[in-house]
């Protein structure tokens, strides 16, 4: 359960970019390998933001599936489970090209 610390980090970034303006919505992009449970993140967000200047803001979670690309045969695949092996040629010279991101992407702010 590390979603609480993540929410504190999100709050810090949101405040820094909001520059005192009211925050309506926070967009975050979460890769499938980030071990973040979206429901838990949203629940923790209400706990962390409640009673602060960020109260009432909505955390909008955009999940991103994990994707693997093969360096040998070029095959790209979406992963349902984390198996580091190419489904095309069976090789393990593969790179994760998506699924590890954890970004605050956008903020909806009250107009200044």
């Amino acid at each position, binding site marked *: 359960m590390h979603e609480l610390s993540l929410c504190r980090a999100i709050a810090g*970034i949101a405040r820094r970019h909001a520059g005192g303006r009211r925050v309506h919505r926070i967009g975050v992009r979460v890769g499938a390998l980030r071990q973040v449970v979206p429901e838990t993140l949203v629940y923790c967000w209400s706990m962390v933001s409640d009673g602060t200047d960020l109260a009432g803001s*909505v955390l909008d979670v955009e999940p991103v599936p994990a994707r693997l690309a093969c360096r040998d045969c070029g095959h790209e695949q979406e992963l349902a489970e984390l198996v580091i092996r190419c489904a095309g040629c069976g090789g393990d010279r593969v790179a994760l090209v998506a699924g590890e991101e954890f970004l605050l992407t*956008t903020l909806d702010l009250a107009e200044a």
Partner: protein
Amino acid sequence: MGRFHRHADGTGHDHDGPAGHAPAGDMSGYATGVQRIEVLERIFAENDRTAAANRADFDAAGVRVVNLMSGPGAGKTTLLRRTLAALAGTRVGVIEGDIETSLDADRLAGLGAEVALINTGHGFGGECHLDAPMVRSALPRLPLADLDLVIIENVGNLVCPAEFSVGEHRRAMVYAVTEGEDKPLKYPVMYRCADLVLINKIDLLPYLDVDLAAFHANLRAVNPAAATLEISARTGAGVDAWCAWLTGTG
């Protein structure tokens, strides 16, 4: 702004548009003027900045730092006791993460290491991992300049510690054969982040049905590059090879 509440139930996304996302600037849901700004900032950025500061301090002091992780009960603290005894002559510091107690730190007393305890429990929920700021807060309690090696014993947990870099040079995890062969598939992110996987409690193998070949296959599936060492913290088997890896001489 009702359309944006849809995600609170965790059902994910159903925005329109090719990227599956509302185009920036579509503020039709808001009653008053709202501006969408693009941020694109990594949420781990602050942790990682502190981890880099920790790493710089370790490097300046010439200390090698290993982050030791495992599930609860895999034998980290028993292994540490054995390790500290075997590393007499190496100046070792231990940063000990524990949610509430000092039990593990107490078990390490008297073995010649400098121990700094971090209790992660506070407020309405203890943290289940060590992060870079927590480790940074412990550094003033260790005489880094006088040490050769610092072992960070993370909180026993197979999920959260994998997410937080603390500035370590290497990551080792302890797997116990009593955990069965499928743990790498159940906790792939943790197994993926390890440089070395210790296979502990091998003295129990005669009494177990665990299939170590299947464990190795499962580990390779999620982390083809991981090194492994078979050890028993109880009997001391394999501890010399582990110590050589720890100190960077193996």
